[in-house]
């Protein structure tokens, strides 16, 4: 086979020698270190095995990832794919065990970029002590896909999984850190905006932080505010619990640079994605302990109580604005568009 190939060709997805070589040289070395089953990813068998936990619940989640640009300030599609899935498990209160990795590549995708992406992916897994169970690679023709798409399925185990619907009246609403970082970093990184900012995505696995609050108890509901941002996640939690989330806007931690870009573009930081944050709703008596545990972890340094659970407007989110006005915070509609003047 040709030695100096540096871009993806259709043969890389054909299941033959080229694919074997790609996986052996660029993928497997990153995943061999950790194994959770008798037949693991390095066996390259038709499937992988996982040892069943002795008790508790298995939690499974799946997610497909596309992002533009593929490499953005603070991360890339590899970090995003790993953190996105691990975070879905973490906010279910589940310790992540294993993850699958299915990659679809566009013909001509640079192999050096695959190296970077796989390394990022593996880096996030290492922090959370997660193994790759199995994987898949496909190649599509030029123009049939925009570079790369990744699907991941995560499997975790929880004593008793925590849903996003369990808020109770009187509970406190916490966020684990600053809001809007990922979405605003991407907006500013997209070429069309041509803005130089120091914004970085917050993409990270929140499991190491969440792990520290679970033993405290009293966690009634959790959710990661990804697409649709804090606004969508809070609305979902309010709707599912049938209660009212009463939020103090001034208490929501927002970086200066995020607030600035947000004002400029007319896009609310509450409407854009976060990739390393959790909304945590807890019983009032454990609020201070949970907050302290979050703040003790580097990812939770800016954690804050942003409101409480009431019942005045069932299923709705009510925001008290910094000036003391009140309004409903509704689901964002779709992709935010910057305003004209």
């Amino acid at each position, binding site marked *: 086979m040709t030695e100096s190939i540096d871009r993806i060709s259709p043969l890389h997805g054909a299941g033959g020698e080229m694919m074997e070589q790609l996986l052996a040289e660029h993928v497997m070395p990153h995943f061999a270190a950790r194994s959770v089953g008798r037949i693991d990813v390095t066996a390259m068998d038709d499937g992988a095995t996982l040892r069943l936990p002795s008790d508790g619940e298995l939690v499974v989640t799946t997610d497909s990832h596309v992002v533009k640009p593929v490499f953005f300030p603070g991360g890339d599609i590899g970090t995003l794919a790993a953190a996105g899935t691990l975070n879905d498990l973490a906010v279910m209160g589940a310790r992540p065990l294993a993850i699958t990795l299915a990659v679809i590549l566009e013909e001509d995708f640079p192999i050096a970029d695959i190296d970077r992406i796989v390394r990022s992916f593996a880096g996030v897994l290492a922090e959370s002590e997660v193994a790759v169970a199995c994987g898949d690679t496909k190649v599509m023709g030029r123009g049939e896909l925009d570079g790369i798409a990744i699907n991941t399925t995560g499997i975790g185990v929880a004593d008793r999984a925590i849903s996003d619907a369990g808020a109770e009246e009187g509970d406190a609403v916490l966020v684990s850190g600053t809001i809007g970082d990922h979405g605003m970093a991407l907006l500013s990184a997209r070429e069309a905006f041509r803005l130089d900012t120091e914004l970085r995505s917050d993409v990270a696995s929140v499991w190491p932080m969440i792990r520290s609050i679970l033993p405290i108890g009293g966690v009634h509901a959790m959710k990661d505010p990804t697409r649709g941002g804090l606004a969508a996640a809070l609305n979902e939690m309010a709707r599912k619990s049938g209660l009212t989330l009463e939020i103090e806007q001034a208490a929501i931690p*927002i970086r200066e640079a995020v607030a600035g870009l947000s004002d400029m573009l007319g896009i609310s930081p509450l409407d854009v994605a976060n990739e390393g944050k959790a909304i945590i709703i807890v019983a009032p008596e454990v609020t201070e302990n949970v907050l302290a545990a979050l703040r003790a972890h580097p990812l939770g340094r800016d954690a804050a109580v942003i409101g409480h659970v009431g019942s005045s407007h069932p299923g709705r989110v009510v925001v008290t604005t910094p000036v003391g*006005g*009140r*309004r409903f915070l509704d689901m964002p509609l779709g992709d935010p*568009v*910057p305003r*004209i003047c």
Partner: protein
Amino acid sequence: MGRPFELADPKRARQLADAIILLAPPTPVKIVHVCGTHEMAITQSGLRRFLPSTVQVLEGPGCPVCVTSTADIDAAVQLAERGAVLCTFGDMTRVPGTRLTLEGARSKGCDIRVVLSSADALRTARETEQDVVFFAVGFETTAPMTAAVLLDDPPPNFSVLVAHKKIPEAMAVLLDLPGTGIHGYLAPGHVSTIIGLQPYQHHLGRFGLPVVVGGFEPLDILYAIALILRQLRDGRGVVENGFPRAVAAEGNPAALTLIDAVFESATVAWRGIGEIPDSGYRLREAFAPFDARERFGIHGQAGEEEIPGCRCADVLTARATPADCPLFGRRCTPLSPVGPCMVGSEGACSIWFRYGGRELP
């Protein structure tokens, strides 16, 4: 971290709200602003909750996207159909013309590109051999930016479809329309940074109603509303600057010079209102080569089609709130807008829908 809270201090807001309650007359008062950013701030900060029930604050023709006439949209569609690369602000792509939206034209193969500024459009022209047309919408705030690129030695493949409009002229016309019943104007802060106070005096002076320039922070807006109510209580009706930290009486001479170098006044059509004398701009003779209408020979005039059931015209003339429209939030949402007020992100309907303006918690 966070925002400049001194301009959103709840204690000061409470004081201003108390002042507003003391100043408000017992009979209903209608205050109109003409700026999407004002509506956004009022709705996002929940400011209507501070106002007594007798004080109503409405958005008039304050959304540049919403007031762009069908004729201008049609011209943009025609230019794109003739093969020009049409550069436009994002919201414009979804505003209905007679036949098509620009989005519709794009799906038929036209090259429509979304830009964030006139400078982006000029850059596009410099990077291609094709004809590039910038669809120039917006008020006195964006007109100087268009002027600046035309003075920046644009390449011959660049031209402009001018649809800029002037706010004070429209504010005056609104007062003559039946059924508007406006008691005072909250004048737009950023337009005023450009034009200063004189144009308001010139066009609105004869009506003798309060016109107060307001900023965009919550306290700026409450303060401006208090100034309007104080004038009403005292039986006065003058132009007053409630935003002196940004607005100078003479405006921004550099920006005005740019506008004057490139544009002259023209009678233009506003959606929902109709033609208003001298309420817009056209290119001066010296810039005729950059006039997209001239270059492509587009002189079509479209009527202002009313969309059945849609009350955009009433919303744009402050004769109705978005919630008064039977389509609002039902058949007409930002995802599938019927009228332009739901399309433009500065449009009252869009803002009310997105930020919960239709109901107060």
